[in-house]
């Protein structure tokens, strides 16, 4: 066993009789950047929290086996005792901030440990420089961008000089650029400080390239190995790995650069093909020309107190069957626009008409039959004790025949326990329930605010398919997201917002290909193609038709 890293030795954890971790053993050497992979609900958070004692000290449950961090066995230590050994960073940095200023927050752990003031000052300055926070060190935490906040949270965990850093989905809520800031800062830490990093993340496409190794947690069991090998065998894998699996590339490659090196053959095989619009479910092309547009918004402005203009003169015309992805950085006005379109949120100027009616002028009960909005926190829409009661409540709210909501939910996703508490559902199920509640009012326009947070790849695919079906059924679906992979699966049209203004608007394929920030992984490897299923479908076509191109493909994949 190595002295510097994190080691689990036959660790088993059960909560209220339900096993979560089952005889887990692994050994991370000092200074390793390790990625923890697994489906939603596999117990990734539990494993991470076990490293610093939050499990079982905060959650309860029984744990057996040995966990050592930097040679110290942590069995009898509380999380507070381990503060100098393990730094822990959660998904929402704001929820964990104790103070209100950057420097104080950074110094907090050191204050608790009783570090000498002179040493503390030096340490804080080092961390500020290391994480690139120099120009915000005097500011209030509330005034920071989301990427800066997450870096402050990482810095705050590092000030005490821990041997290990544990991060639970640090980039899930961040836009691609902010996520890059955070990840490259982490990468530098591993090199400069020799910290052992264990990180769980759903957006593997972002992190896989930085990791040295990976752990796959599935059904309570852990498999350890090199990143490519683990992801290749994992049920959860980023598109580039899926593409590698499809094409049979060795490894498989986890970075875009590696994949490009292998891609020549596949590009040749695809040479004669066009990605057809029906490759993904519900990819029927919609024409906004046919008939009058469903949504007509002109010059929409949203101002907040303090002179902040969140949305500045946005025009958006959309027809039925359109699937629109509203993209842009955190704080670019996506949510404000969605709420203003729905009519419940604030609108300071401009006009919105849904089927000729201004939703803001209607009563809430009538408004939701025009446009339904699923907020960023779907749980806000849910307040019953059980799924069944929630559905009945939705039927009453919408004055529709009993059973309508339950039937919609059944169509969206199968196998939800009607007696479960909505807060106990998985993220994907909860989202489906909120969606069903919204759809009970049968609004032609459906708006979703950041629906992909906390969803793993299969759940996101399922969501894209569901929304695609709704589009085919005649709804106009608008989703705000900065998840480029989800956008590639789902959208027929992409609108990019920046500082409250529309900077690009057009067919998904065109817009996404033109932007390095919003291009999905497959597009980066195979220009012109957006998703793995498109590629698979085209290859399937060429194989059945037996063209020469398919021969090349087979050679390559052999």
């Amino acid at each position, binding site marked *: 066993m190595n002295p510097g890293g994190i080691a689990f030795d036959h660790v088993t954890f059960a909560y209220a009789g339900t096993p979560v971790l089952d005889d887990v053993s692994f050994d991370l050497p000092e200074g390793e950047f390790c990625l923890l992979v697994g489906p939603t609900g596999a117990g990734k958070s539990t494993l991470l929290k076990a490293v610093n004692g939050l499990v079982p000290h905060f959650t309860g449950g029984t744990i057996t086996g040995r966990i050592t961090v930097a040679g110290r066995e942590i069995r009898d230590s509380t999380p507070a005792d381990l503060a100098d050994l393990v730094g822990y960073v959660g998904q929402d940095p704001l929820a964990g901030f104790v103070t209100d200023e950057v420097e*104080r927050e950074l110094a907090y752990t050191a204050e608790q440990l*009783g570090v000498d*003031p002179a040493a503390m000052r030096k340490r804080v300055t080092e961390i500020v420089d290391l994480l690139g926070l120099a120009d915000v060190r005097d500011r209030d935490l509330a005034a920071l961008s989301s990427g800066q906040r997450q870096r402050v949270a990482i810095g705050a965990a590092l000030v005490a000089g821990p041997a290990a850093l544990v991060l639970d989905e640090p980039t899930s809520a961040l836009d691609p650029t902010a996520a890059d800031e955070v990840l490259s800062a982490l990468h530098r830490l591993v090199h400069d400080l020799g910290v052992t990093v264990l990180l769980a993340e759903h957006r593997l496409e972002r992190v896989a390239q930085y990791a040295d190794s990976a752990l796959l947690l599935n059904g309570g069991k852990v498999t350890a190995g090199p990143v490519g090998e683990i992801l290749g065998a994992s049920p959860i894998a980023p598109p580039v790995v899926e593409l590698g699996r499809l094409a049979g590339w060795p490894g498989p490659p986890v970075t875009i650069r590696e994949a490009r090196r292998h891609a020549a053959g596949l590009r040749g095989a695809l040479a004669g093909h066009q990605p057809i619009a029906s490759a993904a479910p519900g990819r029927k092309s919609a024409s906004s020309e046919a008939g009058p547009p469903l949504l007509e918004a002109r010059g929409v402005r949203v101002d907040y107190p303090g002179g902040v203009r969140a949305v500045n003169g946005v025009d958006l015309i959309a027809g039925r069957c359109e699937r629109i992805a509203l993209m842009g950085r955190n704080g670019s006005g996506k949510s404000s626009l969605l709420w203003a379109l729905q009519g419940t949120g604030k609108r300071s100027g401009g006009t919105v008409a849904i089927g000729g009616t201004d939703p803001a002028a209607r009563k809430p009960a009538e408004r939701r039959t025009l446009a339904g909005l699923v907020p960023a926190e779907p749980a*806000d829409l849910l307040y019953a004790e059980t799924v069944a009661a929630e559905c009945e409540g*939705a039927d009453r709210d919408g004055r529709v025949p009993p059973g309508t909501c339950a039937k919609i939910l059944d169509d969206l996703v199968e196998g939800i326990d009607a007696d479960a508490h909505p807060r106990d559902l998985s993220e994907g199920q909860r989202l489906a329930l909120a969606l069903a509640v919204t759809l009970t009012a049968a609004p032609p326009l459906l708006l979703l605010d950041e629906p992909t947070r906390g969803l793993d790849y299969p759940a996101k695919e399922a969501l894209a398919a569901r929304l695609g079906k709704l589009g085919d059924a005649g709804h106009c679906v608008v989703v705000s997201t900065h998840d480029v992979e989800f956008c590639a699966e789902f959208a027929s049209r992409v609108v990019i917002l920046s500082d409250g203004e529309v900077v690009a608007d057009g067919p998904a394929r065109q817009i996404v290909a033109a932007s390095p920030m919003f291009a999905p992984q497959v597009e980066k490897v195979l220009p012109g193609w957006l998703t793995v299923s498109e590629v698979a479908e085209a290859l399937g076509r060429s194989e059945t038709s037996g063209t020469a191109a398919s021969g090349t493909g087979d050679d390559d994949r052999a």
Partner: protein
Amino acid sequence: MNRTRTAAMPKTARHTIHPVAWWGWALLLATAAGRTGNPWLLLLIVAVAGLVVTWCRGSEPWSGAYRVFLLIGLSAIALRMAFYIVFGGSDGPTVLFSLPSATLPEWAAGFRLGGDVTAEGALAAAYDGLRLATLLVCIGAANALASPRRLLRSVPAALYEVSVAVVVALSVAPQLVESVGRVRRARALRGNTSRSPANLMRTVVSPVLHDALDRSLALAAAMASRGYGRAAGIPVPARRATSAALLIGLIGLCAGAYALLSAATPAPLAWTTVAFSAAVSVFGIAFASRRVPHTRYRPDRFGGRDWAIVASGAAAVIGTVLSGIHEPAALWPATNPLTVPDLPMWAAGGILLATAPALLAPSSRGGTP
């Protein structure tokens, strides 16, 4: 990164002033206001506080506190006047107008409702209201100059746990407001606009409480993983002795302050009480602080300028004391008969000295209020 918002905030001179100095200055000014009923002096105190706030405050969110407290002060005057008109008070010969009056029954004898409204009575009520407003404005000035959070950061180590609890509570309040807003908006999305209490309980209160509970659990976990509550190592008897000393000290301080402000208690007794309780509190705090294992990051230092600011506040109090000896009538002007009150020179001089911080600690925004 949002570059427009990232522009580094200049370090202002105000940062070097200790929050305790600001609070001491403001409370001394408030004490001076409590010792007089002279409208000229009270208005002078409001003006001095306003001047120092405009010159010395920074651009933090709480810097607007002065204006808020000024508005609260104005409503205090209005409320005092309304009370006078309804319930009456001191009377005089100059009747402005008469309201229909009703005398309360035996058990509430002494009170009358409505009746004559006299100029003398109205003036007395206005002076009284102004005094309350001035006290409020002084507190507002302290808030604008140094946030309560910065003050809490300066509390002695022995009170650390308490100050953390207060800081967390201070940040929870705005979060709760935000949470209520979010849940209410979501409610509108469901078309649920019923206002029955049972419905509100289920659809607003319960989700908000759920949210608050989740949040506090997350915060507790985050604080624990960052070392909060690490075996503090203070033996139980020492902790009890500290608590007892602090409690006795604080009660004594309150009693002493009350005795000082009321005319009934002889001054030497009041001062002895204050001095004794202060000594007990200081002992308790110092005794406990030595055993606390925490350290402070960049503690605010209490320097010469801070003392000067406190001294300038004390000058206002000393001025009112001297006026109390030499010209007591001007300090509490009579309103019957109606006269224009004199300005007590000693007190006015002392209060003017309290503008010193405007020169001692000009903010970088200097002169651009």
